[in-house]
């Protein structure tokens, strides 16, 4: 029964072909450092899932943001778990992505024909940092308020256009409800959209080009 349903679907969707291409592809003999891309992907998915769940209760306005997070932590069962996963997963994702980058760099895996894979990876790194920066403001506590004050102020030190960038980031002169709202929008819509598209490209290239060998002494 299951077998016949599967083969019906397989014939139409090409599931076996997808499985063979994506998961049964040939890889060189590699080591544990090569798992960090998958680890980052897994953490990214976890961030997506826990983030969607947090949005069930979180409200991005100055008068309710902090209270809604207090409610998630104390009023909702397992709210602490969902928020904790999102909080720690964020830091861990930056860590795995960065070590992944170092592995690719030191093994020279960014070289021909994988330059564009590296390029998409850099976009993903900036995407992850952008998620971190925008997400940090959302709890609207003292730490996030002042961190974002300083963070946007740093952006403001850019010569000539600095003040303009600062104002665009804050949505005005001051850190305000407008800032919180746009950071939230960036955090849940704009960055995720860019990141998802780039992850798909990144994975497509990894599958298309295969992964590189660990370089030996001669290379």
């Amino acid at each position, binding site marked *: 029964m299951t077998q016949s349903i599967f083969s019906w679907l397989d014939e139409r969707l090409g599931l076996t072909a997808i499985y063979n291409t994506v998961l049964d592809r040939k890889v060189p003999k590699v080591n544990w450092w090569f798992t960090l891309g998958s680890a980052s992907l897994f953490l990214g998915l*976890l961030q997506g*899932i*826990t983030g969607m*769940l947090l949005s*069930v*209760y979180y*409200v991005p306005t100055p008068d*309710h943001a902090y*209270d*809604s997070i*207090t*409610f998630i932590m104390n*009023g*909702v*069962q*397992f*709210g602490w*778990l*969902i928020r904790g*996963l999102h909080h720690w997963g964020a830091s861990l994702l930056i860590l795995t992505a960065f070590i992944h980058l170092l592995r690719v760099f030191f093994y020279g895996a960014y070289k021909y024909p994988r330059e564009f894979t590296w390029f998409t990876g850099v976009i993903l790194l900036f995407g992850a940092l952008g998620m971190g920066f925008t997400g940090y403001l959302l709890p609207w506590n003292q730490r996030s308020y002042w961190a974002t004050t300083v963070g946007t102020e740093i952006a403001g030190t850019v010569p000539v256009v600095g003040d303009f960038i600062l104002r665009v980031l804050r949505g005005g002169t001051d850190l305000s409800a407008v800032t919180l709202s746009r950071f939230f929008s960036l955090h849940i819509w704009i960055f995720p959209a860019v990141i998802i598209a780039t992850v798909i490209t990144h994975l497509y290239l990894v599958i298309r080009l295969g992964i590189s060998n660990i370089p030996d002494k001669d290379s």
Partner: protein
Amino acid sequence: MGSKYRSPTIDRRSFVKIVTALLGSMMAAVVGLPVIQYFISPALKKDVSDDWISLGPLENYPLDIPTPFHFTLTRVNGWERSSQSYGAFVLRRPSEEIVVFSDVCTHLSCRVSWDPENEEFLCPCHAASFDKFGGVTSGPPPKPLNRYEIKLEENQLFIHFREG
């Protein structure tokens, strides 16, 4: 690897598959099962109101005409403290019997209003009507308008409001 390390019952590939499936399911369960509680726990929480609400002196209410009275109560829902408004109709019978109805239609909770011309309560949603004593005269409501428990203290009218 030498054959003495090889299991007679399971090969390496199936073993890895089974372990991956098991670990994967465990991780999915650790996140997945709490999610159910995460979604439904606010629904299970009962925010109970149990108050006597003062409706003012009895003389405020004319005889034999259902008269509306509105009051607000502060309720806490999640992270928000808000005041909800409620309505009631007071009917003072010439026999000094006092009846206080809720203005919530028993069908789907629309608010009813008193039509003095035809002497009936009308629900705007599905054209239901109730008589002066709250009994259903036409339309879909399954039961008469809810009545509040009342008490009189020094000629002040109180209703017993319960919710949750």
